[in-house]
């Protein structure tokens, strides 16, 4: 009833007015850990804030998309990227703090690649930004190895039976980036326009890059 709703709202407002909300337990523990590490000089507040700002708001999959678009328009660059991604990534200044190697795997009409980390959540952070929650889920990590076609179908990617499917298991030492196929009908597009078509999921291998007319 409206009267009850009003009373409820009023009670909630009063509660909010009187008390500062206690964060949920893990949030409180993280806050305490940050306090302790700051006190010990193991981290700095500036570096924490700068990382969150960069990864939550700026990096995203843009860097990976730039590399893909350039590989699509520049065969020499693509050859170097396929042969020695570490050097290329270092040259453009996109290496991360995780260390280890980057390997680029190319999708073709005959082969489709998808990446996973079955152990934890190894991922090319510096190229793709924050890994999505599904990439870190136990369901994806176990199922994409056992039944990759079924998992990809759930992402809306139904692969033809004659396409070979390769699942790459990332580790701390070796992380993967999928070079998706360039969609048909994009011949006239600039490198920047092509990069804008490339999605994070396409570089993980859970979708294809759609041509502009097909994008919803």
């Amino acid at each position, binding site marked *: 009833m409206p009267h009850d709703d009003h009373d409820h709202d009023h009670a909630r407002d009063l509660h*909010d*007015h*009187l*008390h*500062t*909300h*206690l*964060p*949920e337990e*893990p*949030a*409180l*523990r*993280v*806050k*305490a*850990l*940050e*306090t*302790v*590490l700051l006190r*010990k000089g*193991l*981290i*700095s507040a500036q*570096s*924490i804030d700068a*990382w*969150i700002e960069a*990864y*939550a*708001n700026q990096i*995203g999959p843009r860097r990976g998309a730039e590399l893909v678009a350039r590989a699509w328009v520049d065969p020499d660059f693509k050859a170097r990227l396929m042969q020695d991604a570490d050097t290329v990534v270092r040259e453009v200044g996109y290496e991360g*703090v*995780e*260390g*280890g190697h980057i390997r680029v795997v190319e999708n073709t009409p005959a082969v489709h690649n998808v990446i996973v*980390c079955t*152990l*934890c*959540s*190894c991922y090319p*952070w510096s190229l793709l*930004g*924050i890994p*999505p*929650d*599904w990439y*870190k*889920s*136990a*369901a994806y990590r176990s199922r994409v190895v056992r039944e990759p076609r079924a998992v990809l179908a*759930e*992402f809306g990617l139904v692969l033809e039976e004659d396409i070979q499917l390769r699942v790459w298991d990332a*580790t*701390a*030492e070796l992380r993967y980036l999928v070079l998706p196929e360039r969609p048909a009908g994009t011949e006239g597009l600039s490198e920047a326009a092509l990069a804008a078509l490339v999605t994070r*999921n396409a570089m993980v291998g*859970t979708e294809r890059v759609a041509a502009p007319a097909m994008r919803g």
Partner: protein
Amino acid sequence: MTDAVAFQKPWHAQVSAIVHALTEAGTFSAADWSQTLGAERAHQQDHGAPDTADSYFIAVLDSLLTLLDRTDPALAADLRETTEAWRTAYLTTPHGQPVELA
């Protein structure tokens, strides 16, 4: 399965940033991190933890504590004390005022 939000909750971002800062500082290696987090996720799964973002980041927090405990066993007690200090600060600070440690 699309998800535009980078982090569902601020503490997910905070704990991820701490992992990266400590990796960058060389407090532990990326390989150590991967092994520890993998073991923690397996432990969680064995104990029926839900397959959610919260579970993942709780595993990240617990893995951090495991690695830090190797080099600084006193940290656990320090952390417990600091957690309680923050809890008290939240419970005793009137709404609208900044929450600070005493």
